[in-house]
């Protein structure tokens, strides 16, 4: 089955080019050129992944991202022309899983799309614990005291990666490789922002984390 990808970009030439590249690699692109209609198109086409330009007519890409995230866990990859810290962080905080800065190589784009579309590798029934959090890996469920906590697939993967090796300290680079699928060093802010989002959902007090701990100067590890 071909994965369907929604491309939200107002630049027709770029959208078409992205379409050519995606089709070349066996994906099925759907296009939307207006931010205001992005949500409608998303609902009607039910894509497996969204490629989202940050600067859009009609509605800001960040707002679109927030709305899609509000009703779906579908992976969102941002296309950004701005690589300024604030814009990237704002995009990630609004719910995007990853970003590709313009100008990007076709291979890079496809790699990012594939990384986010990784089929949930046939997981054996497995239950992990960090602190008082229980993770049902196969069932994609996270709970504390029987209460379910809703996480996006990326956040889930991040938590599982940490929980599988509670004795190990993960550098940001290692997490980028394991969770995001980057072969080469990439922007470690991805990790920072997502750890913060994860903490805001699973920690009792995000200011004093117990589940995902920071190891100063190195990275993160699971709490005991």
């Amino acid at each position, binding site marked *: 089955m071909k994965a369907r990808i929604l491309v939200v970009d107002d630049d027709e030439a770029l959208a078409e080019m992205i379409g050519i590249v995606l089709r070349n690699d066996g994906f099925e692109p759907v296009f939307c050129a207006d931010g205001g209609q992005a949500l409608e198109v998303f609902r009607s086409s039910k894509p497996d992944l969204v490629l989202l330009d940050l600067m859009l007519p009609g509605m800001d890409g960040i707002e679109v991202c927030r709305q899609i995230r509000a009703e779906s866990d579908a992976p969102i990859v941002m296309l950004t022309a*701005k690589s300024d810290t604030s814009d990237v962080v704002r995009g990630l905080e609004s719910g995007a899983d990853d970003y590709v800065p313009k100008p990007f190589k076709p291979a890079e784009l496809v790699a990012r799309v594939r990384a986010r579309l990784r089929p949930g590798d046939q997981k054996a029934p497995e239950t992990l614990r960090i602190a008082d959090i229980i993770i049902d890996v196969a069932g994609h469920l996270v709970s504390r005291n029987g209460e379910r906590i809703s996480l996006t697939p990326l956040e889930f993967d991040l938590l599982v990666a940490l929980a599988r090796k509670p004795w190990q300290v993960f550098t940001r680079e290692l997490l980028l490789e394991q969770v995001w699928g980057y072969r080469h060093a990439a*922007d470690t802010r991805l990790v920072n922002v997502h750890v913060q989002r994860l903490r805001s959902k699973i920690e009792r007090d995000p200011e004093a984390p117990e589940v995902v701990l920071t190891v100063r100067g190195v990275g993160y590890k699971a709490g005991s």
Partner: protein
Amino acid sequence: MVSATKQVPEPSSGETGNEPDVARSPNPEHAHAHSAPEHTDAISGVLTGLPFRTRIWLRRARIVGLRVWRLVRTGLIRLLPGVRFLLRALHRRWRRSLQFRTVLTTLLLSIGSFAVVGAYLSNQIANNLFQERLTQAESETLYNVKQVQDTFDGAQVTDQSSVITLVYDTLNAVEGRGSVIQRRYVFEAMPEQTKPRNRWVESRASDQLTVSVIPPELRKAVQESGKDQYWASTEFPVGTEDRPGIAVGNKVTFNGTVYELYLIYDLNTAQKTLDEIQNVLLAGGAVLVLIVGAIAWYVTRNVVSPVSHAAVVSEKLAAGQLQERMVVKGEDEVARLGASFNHMAASLQEQITQLATLSQMQQRFVSDVSHELRTPLTTVRMAAEVLYDARHDFDPINKRSAELLYNQVERFQSLLADLLEISRFDAGVAMLDAEPTDILKLIENVVEDAAPVAAEYGSEVTINCREESIVVEMDDRRIERILRNLVLNALEHSEGNPVNISVAANETAVAVAVRDHGIGMTQSEAARVFDRFWRADPARARTTGGSGLGLSIAAEDTKLHNGWLQAWGSKGTGSNFRLTLPLKQGEAISKSPLQLEPADVGLPGGPGEGTMVRFGSVSSPAEPADGAAPATGRDEAK
């Protein structure tokens, strides 16, 4: 009577004089240190026979004395800081307040001038009063001495009692009639003359007076002269006080005996008048000084208050409150100052607002250009890559075109990226996103990433560090960019020789030095490597296709970290780039842990020619820069 008056001055200058003298001594310790042993000496020597009780009393007195002295000393020690504080406060006031300084100066100067004028006036008045009295005294004495002489000459008495009566009556008449004594007299037989048989009167004086009140010089003058009259100032006792007076002396003869007759005129009234005048002068002077001080205070306040107002306003203006203005009243100099100050502030505000707007516009422009250029560039690049990937299906011309297109789009893209990065620095929107990171890990990553390039150039990259890990508060993205740039630069210029990376840290800073042994560069070239679009040799082929902005961006990134980026080069020996970063942001680098000029240069076997010159000339700008403010490569160019 005589003996009683004679004794009066003696005790005052004798025993009683000593004790207050000691008590008034400025150093009480001194006084006690002296008095105590004296006491003990006296006690041991003289008082051995005294009763036991007296000794105890003396001992107690000594203890009490010591306690009092201790109390005084602690009091002084306690007071001293207060006094010092007061002096310091006054000094600070003097330095900081123009008004205080002006008023104080005015007061001191007016006190000085009043003192001079007052002294002159009172001196003048005293002189006049004295001269007047003296003239009167002289003429009165002349008349009275003549009267006395006439009376004595015309006397027809021979027996003792009538002689005495005559003399006494005559002399008493000199004192004048009425209850107020107009003048006093001292009547004394001249010494050293044969004593006639009928000389019954030796000396005679008014109440309380003796011949000792007459100054010896006056007596001598009168005795040695013929019939001349002399005068001198003197003091004489009246009741319990000493009064100033003028003594006028002459001789009279009676029964063949020559007597000295001195008439003493009281200057007390004149002195009192003088005292009163002086009091009036003093009081007037004090009041005048106060008034002058008040006037000075008022006037300076009027002048200074606009100035201090201007100072306050300009301080606020300098602190960024650009809307701050001075209050302008009237048309005087101060008003003109205020008006021109306000004018200056207004144009300053305008300029700054304009600059801020410009900077904002540039920022917007950069951001817009960034987006507008990148989107089509992305399309072009993707298209170029698709064509490039399919180039094997093309004929040779199209294939080569696809390759050129692909490569040049790459180059265009990196140039654009660098340009945008630089303009972000210029617009001042580059932000530091620092957090503690292990710089050794970062360096390892950079070296790993550069491995393919190193292999291509046939160079080996080595890392030299004694530490296991060095955690630095930094923006890893930027530091990685700097180091990647330095390493790739070194590889490009190493000509197949190894590239060494040295890392070291001290308490405040970490240094990374990237050393290559390639073609090197001269000192003047090293000073320019951080300039934008600068190339050591313009004719040199652009092999790596760098934008020419890499080192400029590295310098800007370093500046953002408050670090130093410096270059050293030697033609034919290679070059060394040293990045020094503070371990914690906001802390200053005191000294770089690594030397800028590498230690291996100048070793035997190295090219001797010119090395020494470079050693001296390079080390001089490099090492002082260590102590100076954050120096980037461009600073070093000086």
